[in-house]
């Protein structure tokens, strides 16, 4: 673990921001404050942050329906995101897209995506751009999305074109209500990716350091011109597939156990305090700071301007 104090604080702040953002949404959705389908990322923070802490604005990521974590990790404005999810015309996408479509192209964040498996081919295209600038392009996918033909096509094309694309498979063991062991025919996403002819490794998706170190290796590998790579991250989702999911597919006590034993924020805290890299009070201070940020994001979202009928036909090139 050769991380500066600043780097550790930044990594934790990012993970905590995602967690607090999602926990707050969970509460506000239950209160009926937010419309639409919302898929929370809590539990998987070490994945998004472990990947994105390596990236700059000229590196690209593309996300999924479970996109808030990737957006925050890639530097999207948290207040703008909250406003978007609240449906304000002042939101990051003017209230047009909502939770499932948050994007910030200037930050290299090519969008959350409502179509499972749609991201990987687009990441290949961003990989063409990234190759010309010495950057990388990251496709986040789930264990469900890995079964989509579009994902297979993208992996093969990235190999054929030797592009600096990294396919990040966040294996949270469920696609909606279906267990990964049922839907993924191959032994693992790693075995499958390797069969496409790319470097494929696994990392521990609840341990920031495991993800971070593995990604360092893959990014160096891709930037050296070796073509694409893939990584499978073993991780957990702490809420339902979408808010409102009764989660009958979970085993008895499963969620309590995951939150107790497989919480990436707790893992991080334990590791850095035991190694005496940070003190408990450093982490507590970040918690307080982040809670205030989320509180402010919600307050501003509630006070933010609402869209009107006239906004429907903004950003179309023509109307009839």
């Amino acid at each position, binding site marked *: 673990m050769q991380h500066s104090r600043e780097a550790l604080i930044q990594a934790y702040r990012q993970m905590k921001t995602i967690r607090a953002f999602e926990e707050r949404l969970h509460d506000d959705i239950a209160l009926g404050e937010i*419309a639409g389908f919302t898929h929370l990322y809590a539990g998987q923070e070490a994945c998004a942050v472990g990947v994105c802490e390596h990236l700059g604005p000229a590196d690209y990521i593309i996300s999924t329906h479970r996109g808030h974590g990737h957006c925050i990790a890639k530097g999207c404005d948290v207040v703008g995101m909250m406003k978007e999810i609240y*449906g304000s015309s002042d939101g990051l996408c003017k209230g047009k897209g909502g939770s499932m479509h948050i994007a910030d192209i200037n930050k290299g964040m090519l969008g959350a995506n*409502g*179509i499972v498996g749609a991201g990987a081919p687009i990441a290949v295209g961003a990989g063409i751009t990234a190759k010309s600038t010495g950057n990388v392009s990251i496709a986040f996918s789930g264990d469900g999305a890995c079964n989509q*033909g579009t994902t297979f096509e993208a992996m093969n094309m990235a190999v054929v074109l030797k592009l600096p694309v990294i396919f990040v498979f966040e294996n949270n063991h469920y*696609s909606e209500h279906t267990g990964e062991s049922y839907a993924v025919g191959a032994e693992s996403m790693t075995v499958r990716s390797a069969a496409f002819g790319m470097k494929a490794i696994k990392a521990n998706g609840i341990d920031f350091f495991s993800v971070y170190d593995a990604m360092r290796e893959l990014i160096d590998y891709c930037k050296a011109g070796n073509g694409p790579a893939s990584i499978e991250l073993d991780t957990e989702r702490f809420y339902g597939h979408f808010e409102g999911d009764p989660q*009958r597919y979970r085993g008895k006590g499963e969620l309590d156990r995951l939150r107790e034993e497989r919480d990436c924020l707790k893992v991080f805290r334990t590791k850095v305090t035991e190694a005496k890299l940070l003190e408990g009070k450093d982490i507590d201070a970040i918690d307080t700071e982040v809670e205030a940020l989320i509180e402010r994001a919600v307050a501003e979202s509630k006070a933010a301007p609402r869209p009107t009928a006239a*906004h*429907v036909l903004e950003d179309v090139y023509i109307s*009839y």
Partner: protein
Amino acid sequence: MAKKMIRDVIRDTIDEEMARDDSVIMLGEDIVGGMGSAGGPEAIGGIWGTSGGLWAKYGSDRVIDTPISESAIIGAAAGASLTGKRAIAEIMFADFIGVCMDQIWNQVAKFRYMFGGKSKCPIVIRMPYGAGYNAAPQHSQSIHAMVTAMPGLKVVMPTTAADTKGLLTQAIRDDDPVIFLEHKALYGLKGEVPDGEYLIPFGHARQVTQGDDVTILATGMMVGFAEKAAAQLAQDGIGCDLLDLRTTSPLDEEAIMDSVERTGRLLIVDEAPPRCSFATDLSALVANKAFASLKAPIEMVTGPHSPVPFARELESAYVPSPDKIVAAAVKAMSYRRG
């Protein structure tokens, strides 16, 4: 007669047809739910609650829970249907049609014709569609125009519990491919459903209200909106002849022409965007075949030429409302030539 929600009618109708005919099978994502999980199978029974209990009754060979692979779902359903099965495939949201378009458009729709009439492909593709959930641009679309434009497909859009039973039974027994479009906002709608075997042949509109002033043509969620508008217009002395078209292909041209010839005014209500749409198609048809009967320009109330936006205010501005329907009917009534 029993009173049931549309989502339960779908489940029960599939159940009846699976019990009646061993060749009926189902495929789709999470239609069982919980496969490979600690909670076990039947954890959900379809995210719309349209297939609960069927796996327990008919087993994994007939109720097939699939990975997220729409192309393979439709391809597999097509292959099974070409070789003796009657497959009912579920595409969780109609918007995902993009992922499996080739299988629908170039394969399923064309087999019978392209193979010289020597094949049949009795497949039903069920697709929940439409706005109303603030589900944003990729989960809210009305795609009926696209599939209606494809020769080789029959397209069904039920709006009542009884029609859902009659039309779905017909769809499953039909030897041709049927796109069965279920409006998401109507799943919870309750209505009387006839007991026992009940089939409604395709190509017959349902008369919702009768009137002599304006013909209103609608499908899906727009039928209920138009019914509300018609009730309001009736209070102002405007009589609406409202037809729920039920199937967009085949189309009940006779009912449309009969009505327009009587009223002389046509208003079309369509949830989809306005260009190259089902509304423009109906409009062209009537302009061509009933021109002489028209006393006013054909009115269309449709969604705008944009994706379906997310925010509550934006989505409700997007979707045609009863008020807009009323205004369009009044406009048609107040038209004076020259």
